[in-house]
């Protein structure tokens, strides 16, 4: 018992040391960047001094690469991994110093991260809001401190009013429209279908659902047999739901809001089932299922392109240029057995 206590005490001390070291290194990197921050403040105060301040800030920027932070919603799935990889590649190409972070699906943490990187004197912050309504004030504060703020993948509600310079996103409504349009075309406008959705209150999911509805308006012969089922992006849940459905309903198509659920639906139906099963995202598990015929196709949300475009916009703004368009839309791509090899 005593030994265990000692061991625990040792561990605690070790943990403390590690955190102290982390704290020290944190302040170290913050020190040199304290200056541009100081100059940025008066810049915000007076019009006349603004240009001068900006000029001063640019000089160290020239000598050193821009410091840019990317705060992802989370880093737990293939889509987000694509985002970080593409952003890193773009950063290397543009020669900027990119730090990639995760908010772990926690709006509170995302706000803290924004505040922290503003304080550490970063030049620009890119992020995908965990919640469209929670990040406004934090963004405004960052913009007021002279940091360029850009939303990627999805945007803060009324983003223009919160000092956010640009948004780079795919359009979830469009993605939904593309997916449903392909389904309707394949069925020639007539058939029974069911929908699998992400978590019920997810804004991306709601937008995709909106996209489905937009297309379905034009196809009166498409029949929704059951209510949409919330499978929380989860393969196993989708698989169980579809198994159950198939024992009671004749379905011609199952439309899923992401690839993970489409894979589950595909598993339940089996390969070459004749049922049209589609997803959104374009992740490796989806491609595998397209290859062996369990699912029909997917709409790629090109997260990597969104991040890259956002990063490019940030650098442009830091260089003093202006953007032609502050809403940068990345196109959706339909991927099926014919072209899946190009994306794997």
């Amino acid at each position, binding site marked *: 018992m005593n030994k265990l206590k000692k061991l625990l005490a040792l561990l605690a001390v070790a943990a403390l040391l590690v955190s102290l070291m982390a704290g020290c290194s944190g302040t170290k990197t913050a020190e040199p960047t304290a200056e541009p921050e100081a100059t940025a403040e008066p810049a915000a105060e007076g019009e006349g001094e603004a240009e001068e301040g900006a000029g001063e800030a640019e000089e160290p920027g020239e000598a050193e690469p821009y410091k840019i932070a990317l705060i992802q919603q989370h880093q737990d799935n293939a889509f987000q991994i694509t985002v970080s990889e593409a952003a890193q590649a773009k950063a290397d190409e543009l020669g900027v110093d990119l730090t990639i972070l995760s908010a772990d699906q926690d709006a509170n943490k995302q706000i803290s991260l924004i505040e922290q990187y503003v304080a550490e004197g970063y030049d620009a912050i890119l992020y995908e809001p965990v919640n469209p309504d929670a990040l406004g004030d934090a963004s405004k504060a960052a913009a007021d401190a002279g940091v360029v703020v850009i939303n990627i993948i999805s945007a803060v509600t009324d983003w223009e009013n919160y000092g956010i310079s640009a948004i780079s996103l795919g359009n979830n409504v469009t993605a939904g429209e593309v997916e449903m349009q392909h389904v309707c075309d394949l069925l020639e406008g007539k058939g029974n279908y069911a929908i699998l959705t992400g978590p019920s209150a997810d804004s991306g999911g709601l937008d995709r659902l909106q996209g489905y509805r937009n297309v379905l308006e034009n196809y009166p012969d498409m029949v929704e047999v059951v209510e949409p*089922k919330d499978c929380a992006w989860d393969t196993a849940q989708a698989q169980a739901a579809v198994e159950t459905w198939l024992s009671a309903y004749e379905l011609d198509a199952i439309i899923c809001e992401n690839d993970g659920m489409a894979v589950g639906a595909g598993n339940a139906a089996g390969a070459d089932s004749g049922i049209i099963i589609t997803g959104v995202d374009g992740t*490796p598990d989806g491609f*595998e299922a397209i290859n062996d015929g369990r699912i029909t196709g997917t709409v790629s949300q090109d997260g990597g392109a969104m991040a890259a475009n956002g990063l490019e916009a940030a650098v442009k703004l830091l260089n003093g240029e202006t953007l032609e368009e502050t809403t940068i839309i990345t196109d959706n791509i339909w991927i099926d057995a014919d072209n899946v090899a190009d994306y794997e």
Partner: protein
Amino acid sequence: MKEQKSGFNVRSFISKYFIFVIFLFLVLVLTILKPSFIGPKNLVNILKQVSINGILSFGMMFVIVAGGFDMSVGSTIGLTGVLAALLGKGQVPLIVPLCVAMLAGLAVGIINGVGISLGDIPPFIMTLGTMTAVRGVALLITNGNPVTGISPEYKAVAAGSLFGIPTLAIVLFVVAIVCAFVLEKTVYGRRVYACGGNILSARAAGINTNAIKISTFGIAGMLAGLCGFLMSSRVTIGQPNAAEGYEMDAIAACVVGGVSMSGGVGKPIGVIVGALLITVIANGLDILGVSSHWQKVVKGLIIVGAVLIDVKGKGKKD
């Protein structure tokens, strides 16, 4: 305090296993609302769908009966599923991913057990910690990506069937028989109940309560590992974020099945019924085509209602 007459007594059986009656009632209602619910195809579905939660619930039962609590089994499925998928691409015989998954689960369970019994950490806190950490390890191993490309043989494990009964259900059946045997017939099982019933008393009777506790967490972890192996086979990919919240369904199955959260009480047959009840609720509502939002409401109400009716139904006996 007269001795009860031996022989079968229908009334005492019903009051003892009231949850059975509730379950049968639910099945009846669903059948009336949607006849295909009881069709052979959907019965196979139910067997498939109950398996993983059922196996997990038996592991949970050991822990709860011994007076513990395990939040980490869902994450353990995530981790072991990923490990099994990485090893299940056809490069080694299937027994290897199976053993690795179960051993990894066992390791997580033993860490839980040691922390709780020797470190005196409350079970809730300890397993909440491992739940988070183990999920993290699963994400680290895969970098967040699902593991694809598992071999056709591995996929066939969960997809296969024997005389029309899905393999998954057979695995559950075997696990249930073994668990029931261990809990009810062996000295070890008796001691698990003794530990949960009154740990001080058990210790004074010369039982190594620490070993019992650690072993129950080990069993829960190992069965979670088995679930991980089966889960990857079933969904054909190894998902690091698989089985989120499964621990709650397992706990619900135990409690609905009459396992006392304070330990020392519970019958294996009850856990089977509990797991079936949870599955049938989800399956039944799906087959009725009820909207997801309503499903959540109804599921919650049925769980609480079933336990309430069960408690009140039993109470009448006195």
